[in-house]
Every structure is written in structure tokens, then in C-alpha cells.
């Protein structure tokens, strides 16, 4: 294992220490070692909290900042944060106007957030949630409640964070964050596996020369394994299920392509050129595109594509100023 680590069991704590040392303009420590809060939160706003397993950096902590999230709960690699951590994140984010907890649909996160909400209720902190379910490969459209959350979560944080920053109330922040993630359809392709350091061996295998279409952020197997196509055919294989998921034609969209960790950023832009061609051919206008490593899976090779349908309500929130480790506008 060619990794930059100390004790494999302490990778997350050691990494959090690095983030705190490197980016004091964004991060302040809290009473919980697995909770970071934004170092310069504006007062009087709805608190925005997220959280999830580690290994997806810059998600989740990279989205703590101006116009985004106020606090983050940090789990073990690919494992939900504890209920205690979510509760502490709620506490530090709450300014008396309530907390919007915006996270992805995974069994562990659902249980820990549920428990943390019950505990927060006892402390009179009003917490409401939006659960991202944007991965089209994880369940059909009529079973959206089963879908897992992937890079569409970034759009949910962006829109929810922007709504909170302009001092919308909790119900409005929740409504807009929900609308944002419902407008997103995502899919991933995996070209290679990843290794959790404490495990020491790859989590799964993808045979050389192959690609797994619809793979999840933790290597959850996808729809099918196919011979590795060229970039143009890969873009089409990703666009087909995404564009079939909702009607994007005739409108504006935001596009986000994220690398899964080990794919060169150059190749992500190469892929995007074909996605942009396809969208143009379908009469879909790209309002903005974000291409880079926004939501990764350790050192997997591959990418996710997210297409978000925009309207006049969402557009200004997607474009609104934001400043964090992961995105700046």
C-alpha cells in the first residue's frame, strides 16, 4: 500500500489535524474531535450542517465556508459519523434560527442523524433534514427513496447554503435544498478500485480494460461492467441514463463532473467536452460547469456526472458567492 499515513486506524484524526493546521481561515475546532465549524460564520442565520464518511475529500469538510455549510460531522473512512458528532455539529451551527442538516441517503447516516435529532430536540435545537438521492444508477426513478446521494449533494449544499446566507428561514432553506437536489441526476463510472488504509487491500476489483457503469461512491457495484470505451462513448454511456431520468430539454442546466480521486483532472475536462457536445446536440443549455475533484472515493479512478435542471429560483442560488476549500464563486 503506497500511502502517506501513520497508524492506519488513526488516518481520519491525523487528516483532520492537517486540515486545521492548513486552513485556519475556514476551520475551527469544536468540543468534538470529529466536528469542524466554519471559522467565520455570519450571525443570525439558519445553521447549515452536513456530514458523512471520510475518504470523499474535499467532501464533506471542504464545503464548510461562506455561503455553504457552517459545520461538518466527520466519520471514519466510508462510514457515517456518530450521532454524538452530528449533535455537536447541530449545536455549533445553531444560532437560534434552527439547523438544516443536508446529507446523503445511506443507512448509517440516516440512523445517526435520527438519533442526533432526537437528542437535539431535548436541547431545543430545531433540526430539519434534506436527504440527497440523486444517483440514478442506485434505483429506478419510481423508487427514488432508495437512491443514494452522490455529487448532487454539492448542489444541495450550494443552494441551501446560499439561501441561509441571504437569511431565508429554516423552512425556506429546507425547501430550496430539497428542490436543488431533486433537480439533480447523477451517475458514476469506476475504472479502478480503492483501498481503505486500515483494510490494506482493495475493496473490490475492476478488471483492467473494463469500466463499471453506475458504480457508487464506496464501490457499490453499478449497473454493468463493460469494456473501457473511449471518452466520447463514455460520455454517452453516462449521459444516457442521466438525460432519461428527467426532462432537461429546452432549459438551462448546471453540470458537475467530479473525479473519484485518481483520474487526472485533464481527463475530466476531456470527458466534459464530450458531455457538452451531447447536451448541446440535445438542445440543453449549460449555464455553468464545474469540473474537478469535488467528491472523491479515496484513490478510485473514474468520475461522476451530475446534471441539474435550473429555473429562475435556483439559478441565482447556484451562482451566489461562496468561499470554501472546495468551491469559490
Amino acid at each position: 500500500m503506497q500511502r502517506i499515513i501513520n497508524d492506519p486506524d488513526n488516518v481520519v484524526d491525523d487528516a483532520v489535524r492537517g486540515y486545521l493546521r492548513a486552513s485556519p481561515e475556514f476551520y475551527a475546532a469544536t468540543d468534538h474531535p470529529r466536528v469542524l465549524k466554519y471559522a467565520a460564520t455570519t450571525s443570525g442565520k439558519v445553521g447549515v450542517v452536513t456530514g458523512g464518511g471520510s475518504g470523499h475529500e474535499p467532501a464533506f469538510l471542504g464545503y464548510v465556508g461562506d455561503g455553504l455549510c457552517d459545520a461538518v460531522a466527520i466519520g471514519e473512512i466510508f462510514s457515517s459519523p456518530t450521532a454524538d458528532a452530528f449533535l455537536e455539529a447541530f449545536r455549533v451551527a445553531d444560532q437560534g434560527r434552527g439547523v438544516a442538516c443536508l446529507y446523503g441517503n445511506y443507512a448509517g447516516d440516516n440512523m445517526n442523524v435520527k438519533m442526533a435529532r432526537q437528542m437535539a430536540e431535548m436541547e431545543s435545537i430545531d433540526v430539519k433534514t434534506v436527504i440527497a438521492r440523486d444517483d440514478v444508477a442506485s434505483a429506478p426513478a419510481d423508487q427514488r427513496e432508495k437512491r443514494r446521494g452522490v455529487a448532487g449533494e454539492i448542489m444541495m449544499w450550494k443552494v441551501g447554503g446560499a439561501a441561509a446566507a441571504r437569511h431565508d428561514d429554516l423552512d425556506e432553506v429546507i425547501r430550496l435544498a430539497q428542490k436543488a437536489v431533486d433537480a439533480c441526476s447523477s451517475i458514476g463510472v469506476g475504472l479502478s478500485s480503492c483501498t481503505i488504509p486500515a483494510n490494506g487491500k482493495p475493496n473490490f476489483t475492476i478488471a483492467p480494460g473494463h469500466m463499471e457503469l453506475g458504480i457508487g461512491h464506496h464501490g457499490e457495484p453499478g449497473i454493468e461492467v463493460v469494456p473501457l470505451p473511449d471518452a466520447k462513448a463514455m460520455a454517452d454511456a453516462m449521459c444516457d441514463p442521466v438525460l432519461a431520468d428527467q426532462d432537461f430539454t429546452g432549459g438551462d442546466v448546471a453540470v458537475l463532473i467530479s473525479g473519484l480521486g485518481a483520474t487526472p483532472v485533464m481527463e475530466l475536462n476531456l470527458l466534459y467536452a464530450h458531455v457538452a457536445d451531447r447536451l448541446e446536440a440535445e438542445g440543453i443549455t449549460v449555464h455553468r460547469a464545474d469540473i474537478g475533484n469535488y467528491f472523491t472515493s479515496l484513490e478510485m479512478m473514474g468520475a461522476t456526472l451530475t446534471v441539474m435542471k435550473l429555473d429562475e429560483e435556483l439559478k441565482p442560488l447556484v451562482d451566489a458567492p461562496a468561499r470554501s476549500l472546495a468551491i469559490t464563486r
Partner: protein
Amino acid sequence: MQFLDTSHGSDILGDLVDVILDNRDYLSEVDGSIGDGDHGINMAKGFRLYSESIQGQSLSLAKAFTTLANTLMGSIGGSMGPLYGSLFLGMGNASKDLDTLDARTFGDMLSAGLESIQSISDANVGDKCLLDTLVPAVMDYRHAVDDDDSFTSALQALRNGAERGCESTRELEAKIGRAARLGERSKGHLDAGAVSCCLLLVRLADSTERHLERAAA
């Protein structure tokens, strides 16, 4: 009539810690087939932290279960933190005012743990999860007690139910958790949570039985 002295909490839970630490790699390997491959790591971490935190203390069964529950919920997260946390919290609460447990009250303790899990999770038997082990184990145990079997025989029923339930997950299609996204392809593999639950229940039965024998001697 056989009684378990509840003052042996540290001993009995020490055995549970051992079985998890001894099977760390095995549990991760089982999990790796259809899940993240981190089950052994997370369980071992939580149980080790519990063990370190109570070092040298002699705890009652209730206190030991409650401490283990709080450690798991506060330290390992994932799905297993809340699931096992609520199981042991339920067991701790049910045994807290009792100096001894007989076959029936031991069964009440197991049932309380099961109810506690069901209060935070919608999971059911057949979902390919730890409930596939826990539910038949508790049911078999209770049936044995209702049939007036001895404490020792009821513990054997607990072991049998756990092992049968665990084995049943091999042919199930996962309905919840990460493996659910595998659908058909989750068949043919045991569920890691069902395996750890089986290891824990079998060791709990072994440890309890040893204390019953010692008390009788």
C-alpha cells in the same frame, strides 16, 4: 434453578470483546464481499475502546452493557454504532435493577435489546442484516424457556437460533444497507452484521454458561 450473578459484567463482556478482536480480519473479509470491508475494523475499534475505558474495573452486567453501548454509539458511527449501541443499551436497561438473572429474565434482557434496535431501524428479518441472526436466536431462546427447558438448554437454543439465522443470510438478497444496491448479486454471501451478531450471541451463551457452571460447582 440456575442463576447468573449480574456482578460478572466485566468478565462476560470481556469475552465479547475477545471474540470481536479475534475476528477483526474475518469480519472485514466477509464484509468485503458485498459491503465496504470495514465491519471488522469498526467493530474492533469500538470494542477495544470500551475495553480500554473500563480497564481494571469490575462492572455489573447492566453497567458494562450500558458503557459498551455508549462507547459504540459515541465512537464507531456507521450503521453498527447505532444498531449495536441500541441493542446493548436495551439489554443494559433491562438488567439494571437485578442482582441475578434466571432463564426467564435473561430472555427478557435479550428481548429488550431486540426491541431497542427495532425502535431506531426499520430493518426486518429477511433484509440480510443482523436481525436475521438476532430475531431467531431470541425467539428460539424464549421458546425453550416457555417449554421449561433449563437455562443451559435455553442457551443452546440461543446458539442454534443465531447460527441458523446467520447462515440464512447467505441465500438472501440484501434489502438494506450498502449491499442492498447489489440486488441479486448479494446472494451467496453471508451478511457481515449477521456474522458479528452470531459471534457475539454464541460467545454470550458460552460465557453465561461458564458462569452458571462455576456457580453450581
